[in-house]
């Protein structure tokens, strides 16, 4: 019997030989299917073939084109292979044919098939008479199984017809038949409760059955019939707890029902004794482990359980802790873990046994053991415990480590005096290998400890500083830098953090650099003594950024640094006021000298004319991804250039010939005319890719572009910095980018809206009213329309006073083609939050006024 474990490759071969189900040819099944028409029906062969169909059901492959279907249908009807669609009904007919077989095994497969196919009412008729006949058969196995099948497919009408048989079956001498009827009753109670409730006399009788499982099923059904009758349940429990319950499963049920009665009876009697506690306690001496455990668990979950009540339960659980069976150890330590949350003292007696479980080969048990100990441990045992955990941590998966980190966090909050060793532990594991979720759990814990334990602040902040020196997760670095900006300036010596923060400005990707600059600014704003030093650093980091740009891309020199420069300047004007948090790459929304210079320096784009507008960057990747990409839309009269700003965040990779493959099938009026790829794209050096589209002049075409980054990736040896010779072509899907109507509108303010409005020709005015439907609020509706139009709100009219029922917003802008546009928007909201809007547009060109209406009408 004991054959050696087969190696993978051999296994493959075996599969083809032995499994008729996995790789079988349709023809072979048809060949096989002849057995159904054979007058000397080979039942066993049929049964095996049958299982292949069921097997496919399990795979979810019960498709109409399945060879198996066809095999059955053709076998049944004697027709040629049925082509085209085959109804499940036909399979069902085929199945019923097999009722003629006398073979029990095959009959049972038919039963199974009927259950799997869950036939419709029409189809049920075919099998009902056969099943009813089986239900009255002399063969017990037929009866039991026919009952289960019939009850599964029955409806209310049919059920009334067979009710008499079912009631008899419940008290049948044969336990298999009785159980089948009882279990079916449990299922039927959900759909036909009024019928099943009529069986309670028979069910009551079955509860007294000598057959163990009949008693179990009868008890479950009886309880469900009576579950809304508290008194009846209480009586049931009272009589059974005094009598004999044979099966361990029934005993477990009774324990659950007893707990329910205890809970609902509302606590202790006058004498302080809990009713039925003695019964639960006696179950702790039962011979079946499942009953002992059920009772122990029930006791630990009693409302307001006392230590005296707990003790015997804890004692048996403690014995289970040293069982040779992992399931038993797991169940026991999991229950003790829960007890430790409310009664840590009650569990301390088991601490030695639990400690030995730290080395349990089952890591779930080991983790439960650790977290239990962390809950029950006292101040003096913390250090010893931490030593044990340190060894354990390297052996378990991240998901378990997170549980441990969380337990350590609560332990530290419980014993603040022990913060030193716990904080050390956290900082040590922070330095080790680990995934994002795990590292985040540690960082979160340190942050919470810093916030809650003042003494832990300085050391905690330094641990975090050390961590970001070598942190691969942009999200965590920025979170920590942000936190440093809040907590750092409040410490006794803020200057010691500056070095760590300033280092980030040199060595990190754009997002982290931005966070670091922002944090430096916070230190500068909040700590007067540091202000001069910070200014120097901020100025210096501008020059550093310049040096970082690759010289082979001439336009870079003008673009990125300009954007960064704007930030510290604003900082200088208003130190100590509002903190800028924007990242450097997010450039200003208006057309920008830098963009203009940049684009005109590219020969392919020089013929596009004057740049009308450049949008704000739109992120095309999630934070923390391998490649960070955002896009800027540059709008020209008859062209749109998309500028993809990319950062490669993987040190081990050098990308070459990077292009963006743009699918403009959902932007019909655009056609791609030029693309400017990035020849070389090393780690952490921002680069740009451009794709230019032509569009009809004077048409404000809109549409959606789907983007895919395509490149050759080469591995970089980090020790030498050398890239491999050969690369692999790869692709990376980016988010979609949309060109919308607002892209064709420049936000240009006017100094006096009323004068400007009056000076425009009233004949070019276009007015219309729109219903905006129910909105969240008036303010939300106003800002949605302003965003849709992309215009400049004037005179502060974008702000809607609280509780206003109506509002007027004044907007101005310049539309593509340099057409001045003014808009008056009047909003009203009713009690059901329906918003109506009147839109009046004046412009130098009435076609443009119409175009604005179209934007709103289609938006």
């Amino acid at each position, binding site marked *: 019997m004991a054959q050696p474990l087969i190696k993978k490759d051999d*296994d493959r071969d075996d599969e083809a030989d*032995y499994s008729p189900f996995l790789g079988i040819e349709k023809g072979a099944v048809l060949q096989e299917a002849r057995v159904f028409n054979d007058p000397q029906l080979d039942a066993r062969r049929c049964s095996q073939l049958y299982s292949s169909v069921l097997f496919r059901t399990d795979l979810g492959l019960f498709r109409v084109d399945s060879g198996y279907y066809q095999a059955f249908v053709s076998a049944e009807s004697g027709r040629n292979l049925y082509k085209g669609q085959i109804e499940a009904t036909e399979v069902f007919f085929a199945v019923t044919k097999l009722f003629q077989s006398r073979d029990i095994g095959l*009959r049972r*497969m038919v039963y199974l098939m009927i259950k799997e196919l869950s036939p419709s009412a029409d189809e049920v*008729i075919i099998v009902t008479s056969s099943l009813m006949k089986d239900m009255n058969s002399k063969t017990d196995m037929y009866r039991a199984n026919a009952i289960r099948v019939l009850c599964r497919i029955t409806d209310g009408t049919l059920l009334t017809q067979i009710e008499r048989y079912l009631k008899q079956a419940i008290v049948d001498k044969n336990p298999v038949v009785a159980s*089948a009827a009882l279990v079916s009753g449990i*299922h039927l109670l959900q759909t036909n409760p009024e019928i099943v409730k009529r069986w309670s006399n028979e069910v009551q009788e079955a509860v007294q059955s000598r057959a163990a499982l009949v008693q179990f099923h009868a008890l479950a059904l009886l309880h469900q019939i009576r579950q809304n009758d508290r008194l009846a349940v209480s009586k049931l429990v009272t009589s059974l707890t005094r009598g004999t319950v044979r099966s361990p499963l029934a005993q477990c049920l009774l324990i659950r029902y007893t707990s*329910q009665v205890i809970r609902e009876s509302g606590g202790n009697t006058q004498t302080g004794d809990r009713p039925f506690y003695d019964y639960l306690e006696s179950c702790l001496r039962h011979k079946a482990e499942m009953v002992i455990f059920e009772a122990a668990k029930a006791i630990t979950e009693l409302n307001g359980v006392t230590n005296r009540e707990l003790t015997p339960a804890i004692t048996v659980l403690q014995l289970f802790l040293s069982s040779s069976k992992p399931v038993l150890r797991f169940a026991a330590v999991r229950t003790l873990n829960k007890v430790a949350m409310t009664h840590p003292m009650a569990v301390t007696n088991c601490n030695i046994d639990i400690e030995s479980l730290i080395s349990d080969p089952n890591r779930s048990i080991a983790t439960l053991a650790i977290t239990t100990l962390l809950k029950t441990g006292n101040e003096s045992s913390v250090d010893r415990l931490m030593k044990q955990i340190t060894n354990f941590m390297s052996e378990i998966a991240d998901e378990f480590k997170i549980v441990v980190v969380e337990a350590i966090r609560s332990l530290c909050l419980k014993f603040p005096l022990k913060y030193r060793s716990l904080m050390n532990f956290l900082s040590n594991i922070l330095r080790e290998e680990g995934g994002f979720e795990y590292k985040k759990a540690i960082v979160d814990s340190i942050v919470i400890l810093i916030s809650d334990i003042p003494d832990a602040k300085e050391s905690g902040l330094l641990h975090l500083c050390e961590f970001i020196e070598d942190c691969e997760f942009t999200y965590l670095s920025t979170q920590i830098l942000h936190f440093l900006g809040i907590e750092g300036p409040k410490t006794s010596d803020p200057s010691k953090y500056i070095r760590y923060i300033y280092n980030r400005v040199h060595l990190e990707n754009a997002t982290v650099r931005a966070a670091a600059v922002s944090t430096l600014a916070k230190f500068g704003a909040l700590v007067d003594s540091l202000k001069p030093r910070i200014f120097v650093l901020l100025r210096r980091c501008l020059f550093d950024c310049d040096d970082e740009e690759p010289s082979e891309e001439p336009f870079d020199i003008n673009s990125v640094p300009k954007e960064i420069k704007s930030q510290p300047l604003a900082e200088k004007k208003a130190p100590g006021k509002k903190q800028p948090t924007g990242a450097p790459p997010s450039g200003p929304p208006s057309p920008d000298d830098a963009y203009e210079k940049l684009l005109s320096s590219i020969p392919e784009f020089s013929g596009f004319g004057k740049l009308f507008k450049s949008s704000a960057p739109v992120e095309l990747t999630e934070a923390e991804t391998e490649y960070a990409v955002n896009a800027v839309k540059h709008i020209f009269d008859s062209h749109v250039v998309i500028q993809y700003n990319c950062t490669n965040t993987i040190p081990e990779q050098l990308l070459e010939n990077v292009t963006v493959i743009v699918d403009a099938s959902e932007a019909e009026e655009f056609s791609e005319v030029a693309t400017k790829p990035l020849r070389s794209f090393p780690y952490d050096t921002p680069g740009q890719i451009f794709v230019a589209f032509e569009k009809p002049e004077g048409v404000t075409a809109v549409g959606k572009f789907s983007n895919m980054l395509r490149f050759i990736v080469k591995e970089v040896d980090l020790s030498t910095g050398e890239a491999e010779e050969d690369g692999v072509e790869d692709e990376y899907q980016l988010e979609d980018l949309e060109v919308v109507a607002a892209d064709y509108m420049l936000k240009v303010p006017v100094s006096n809206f009323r004068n400007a409005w009056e000076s425009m020709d009233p004949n070019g005015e276009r007015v219309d009213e729109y219903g905006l439907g129910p909105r969240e609020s008036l303010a939300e509706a106003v800002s949605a329309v302003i965003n849709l139009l992309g215009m400049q709100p004037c005179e502060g009219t974008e702000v809607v006073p609280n509780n206003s029922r109506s509002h007027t917003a004044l907007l101005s802008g310049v539309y593509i083609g340099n057409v001045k546009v003014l808009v008056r928007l009047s909003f009203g909201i009713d009690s059901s939050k329906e918003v109506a809007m009147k839109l009046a547009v004046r412009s130098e060109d009435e076609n443009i006024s119409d175009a604005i209406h179209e934007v709103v009408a289609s938006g």
Partner: protein
Amino acid sequence: METCPSVKNILLLDSEGKRVAVKYYSDDWPTNSAKEAFEKSVFTKTQKTNARTEAEIAMFENNIVVYKFVQDLHFFVTGGEDENELILATVLQGFFDAVGFLLRGNVDKKEALENLDLILLCLDEIVDGGIILETDANVIAQKVASHSMDAGAPLSEQTISQALATAREHLARSLLK
């Protein structure tokens, strides 16, 4: 806790995590891909454990899974997080031993696939709609293996063809509506 002990699924996978036979009794995994994802995650996380002498146990997505391996077959039984672990282990042991009896000790994937009908019947005799029917491996195996011919039971050809005729007429009517 007042509820009857219940089983959410029973899985029999091979040594690569592919299905040999599975049966779900709960709606927690409504689609086939949800079921496959669950099987994959359970298989991957238990693959390296040694569940050959004693049944092992783990938690997945708020479910308890008890499991045992033999040769190239992996047996799993899943229940809710509040279920009594030992009850689930008893169901697993019943399934495991019954399959052992039915395959006459040759418990491996090849033998299991060749006798898949027995395995499927075995599953059907252990749990019905999530409720435990029987956990004694001997009884389960006997119920499955009772292949004796039964003289009293066969239905006459007439009964079946009558039924088919009635049903076909019935179906045609409902199609014409």
